[in-house]
């Protein structure tokens, strides 16, 4: 077993500390754009962490996970549009709506497996996309501008960029810790056993469906929270938040970072979005570079970035 000073542990600690110190760097003269970029990275990393709970640990290949970004985001956007700005209303509604949606589509799609599960989760997410795009009152296809961010008590102010960054970061760290506790608990052992061999799990006495469904709902709620943050970050929601390519991005983050590793999706989110940012500065056809890169990871580094770090040993 790797000790405390393994390359992986060092990288994780350095990374978490660097994220915590980023606003200080910006204050000392770094680009303010960095703060905006990394707020976005942190929010999407949270969504990827939640996807990893079902995908990496539970083996549930959901291809519609971005739908919760949309649901959480629209909960904030719609309520704000109706003049309800309190975060104490908006956020619980965002979480409850995500939970309900996950419960319903989970109950229907978790009865299937493999490609059918992928298609069902994709289909339900696309359905939600078209429903939202049809809501003329809330901007339809064009989306909805949010004029005031979620209101909490003083001195919490989401419009303060540094404060908002730290709130997102704290919630990301909390979700990583939560997922870490969950996957190592009895519940988590059932989820991992079911990924490994579901038939055998049922044969030894686990009614796996209800565990998988619970896990599916937890992941949906976590991603719904990320959606509420994202809406506040961009001051705007649109159906594009839950388009299927967004779900694809989240899967890429998980695979790139390392499936079934608690911190993997954070590596993946940073790698994907920083690459996207730099490559798109070089050429508008940046995806031509990203594609082969992903191919290399899938072919030669199955464990993703986290898997590579685990292999690094001191001489």
């Amino acid at each position, binding site marked *: 077993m790797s000790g405390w000073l393994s390359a992986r542990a060092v990288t994780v600690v350095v990374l978490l500390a660097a994220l915590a110190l980023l606003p200080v760097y910006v204050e000392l003269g770094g680009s303010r754009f960095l703060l905006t970029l990394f707020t976005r990275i942190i929010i999407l990393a949270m969504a990827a962490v939640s996807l990893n709970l079902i995908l990496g640990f539970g083996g549930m290949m959901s291809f519609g996970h971005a739908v919760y970004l949309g649901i959480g985001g629209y909960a904030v956007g719609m309520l704000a549009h109706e003049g309800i700005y309190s975060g104490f209303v908006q956020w619980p509604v965002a979480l409850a709506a995500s939970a309900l949606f996950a419960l319903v589509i989970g109950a229907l799609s978790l009865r299937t497996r493999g490609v059918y599960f992928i298609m069902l989760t994709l289909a339900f997410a696309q359905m939600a996309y078209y429903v939202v795009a049809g809501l003329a009152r809330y901007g339809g296809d064009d989306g909805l501008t949010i004029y005031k961010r979620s209101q909490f008590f003083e001195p919490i102010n989401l419009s303060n960029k540094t404060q908002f960054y730290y709130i997102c970061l704290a919630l990301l760290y909390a979700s990583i810790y939560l997922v870490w506790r*969950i996957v190592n*608990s*009895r*519940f988590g*052992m059932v989820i991992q056993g079911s990924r490994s*061999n579901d038939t055998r799990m049922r044969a*030894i*006495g686990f009614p796996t469906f209800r565990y998988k469904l619970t896990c599916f709902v937890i992941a949906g709620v976590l991603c719904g929270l990320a959606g509420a943050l994202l809406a506040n970050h961009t001051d705007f929601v649109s159906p594009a938040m839950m388009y299927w390519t967004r779900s694809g991005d989240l899967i890429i983050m998980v695979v790139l970072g390392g499936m079934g590793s608690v911190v993997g999706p954070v590596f993946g989110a940073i790698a994907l979005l920083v690459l996207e940012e730099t490559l798109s500065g070089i050429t508008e056809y940046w995806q031509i570079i990203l594609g082969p890169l992903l191919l290399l990871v899938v072919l030669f580094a199955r464990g993703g970035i986290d898997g590579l770090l685990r292999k690094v040993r001191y001489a």
Partner: protein
Amino acid sequence: MPDLLQVENLAKRFGGIVATDDLSIAIPEGQLHAVIGPNGAGKTTLIAQLSGQLTPDSGHIQFAGSDITALPMPARSALGLARSFQITSLFLDLSVLDNVALAVQAHAGHSFHFWRDARGQVELRDPARAALARVGLTARENLPASALSHGEHRQLELAMALASKPRMLLLDEPMAGLGPEESARMVAMLRELKKELTILLVEHDMEAVFALADRITVLVYGRVIASGKPEEIRNNAQVRDAYLGEQEAVHG
């Protein structure tokens, strides 16, 4: 002694093929009952119906006094009916100890516990270690299950079945693919287990069957053609024709 398992007029068809044909078996508590028969006789189909993986078309299965014909797999397992698989079916990416600990956890109440580290819980780990010790895998407990040999996979299968503290074991060809030495070890292990458990054994290895069984049932095309003590089966002309003769012919 009362019968622990009672199967009455069980039938299962797959299209035109009759896999189980009006089959009845009664197994009293404490007995090791072997089911033998040529390939395609419906032995695995029988075990699948007993464990709840397949639903019979008609007939009844009683276990420990209650009708379990319509119960799903987890409920049967909770009543104390444990199954081992013919094709080894383990959690290959989990550790050997995790495999057995999961079997213990399956019978330790519901698993909606989200916070405490499961790998630190002695109430799961200790019984798991005890089961591993009984099958002689203690030294391998931290390896991933995928790193074990075929024979060790069988031992692990058995440890998992034992860890659920079953009243009855359904063993589907536990000797399949084992070398002579591993087979002998498995026979010795089953001889020990048979002192405390009721066992239904499906097995091709005749030497093992006749060494272990209290009673033997012979299946051909899903039907029972004979059932009795080992010596009765050995001397049964119909069985010799249908099965044992063929085996001897095959193995020269």
